[in-house]
């Protein structure tokens, strides 16, 4: 049975995602920091998105740039930012700079026996920024058909990327 994924809006400005993996922190960390591995799971097929390119220099001060395609979007979408902190096997912090209201994302890896607890924390610059991210992700779905729902998924995906 797979481990549950939980999401909580921790405060007006924060979202927290948790998941436990059945492996040591070193391996989970590796899957986040080696672009050739990251590429294999960051754009899940069930969401219809695929990588056009995936550049990530995962070390403190390094940058990343992910470009995705999706059938519902004519233009490829680029997402980019900077790694503020990369501490082997325990912590990665990066910025999301494609929008002025982008969050700062912190992922921590905590080894517990032969498992690793992953906590992903997103801190938005303001309550308004998170509210707007939520609102823009929802209006498409409530107003338009399936096409928009798909696009909506992509946007949510990409906003978080």
């Amino acid at each position, binding site marked *: 049975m*797979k*481990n*549950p*994924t*939980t*999401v*909580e*809006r*921790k*405060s007006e400005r924060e*979202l927290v*995602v948790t*998941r436990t*993996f*059945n*492996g*040591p922190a070193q*391996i*989970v960390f*590796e*899957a986040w920091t080696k672009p050739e*591995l990251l590429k*294999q*799971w*960051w754009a*899940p097929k*069930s*969401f219809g998105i695929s990588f056009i390119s995936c550049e990530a220099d995962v070390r403190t001060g390094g940058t990343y740039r992910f470009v995705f395609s999706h059938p519902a979007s004519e233009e490829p979408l680029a997402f980019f930012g900077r790694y503020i902190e990369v501490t082997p096997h325990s912590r990665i912090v990066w910025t999301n700079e494609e929008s002025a209201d982008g969050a700062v994302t912190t992922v921590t890896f905590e080894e517990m026996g032969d498992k690793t607890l*992953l906590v*992903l924390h997103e801190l938005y610059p303001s309550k308004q920024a998170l509210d707007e991210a*939520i*609102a823009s*992700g*929802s209006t498409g*779905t*409530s107003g338009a058909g399936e096409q928009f729902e798909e696009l*909506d*998924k992509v946007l*949510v*995906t990409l906003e*978080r990327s």
Partner: protein
Amino acid sequence: MVQFQPAHLDASFAALSDATRRGILERLGRADASITDLAEKFHMTLTGMKKHVGVLEQAGLVTTEKVGRVRTCKLGLHRLEEEAAWIERYRRLWEARFDELDKIVAELKLERVDGRKMRK
């Protein structure tokens, strides 16, 4: 599963514990109304009504919008539902990613074990 902060729920329950505030929600369920309308309907002062609306707004049950000199109140439940729906989609995205990541972790673990065996 969508998880809400207990504080979030506390605010909602506190807001709903008052009969006047429940009446306001019922009223807004039929039509949007200004603070002045609501104060008249519930035979209250503007200040008193503003307080009640403020509590409902804090709990996310009501939203208000000021146009000119009139502040219009409407049910905010929709916003809460939207937030819950968005959070659920967001959770599913991470779940889909992490399901793939599970496979990679399993593969890497296996490689390490095989690698060790081969070196022996």
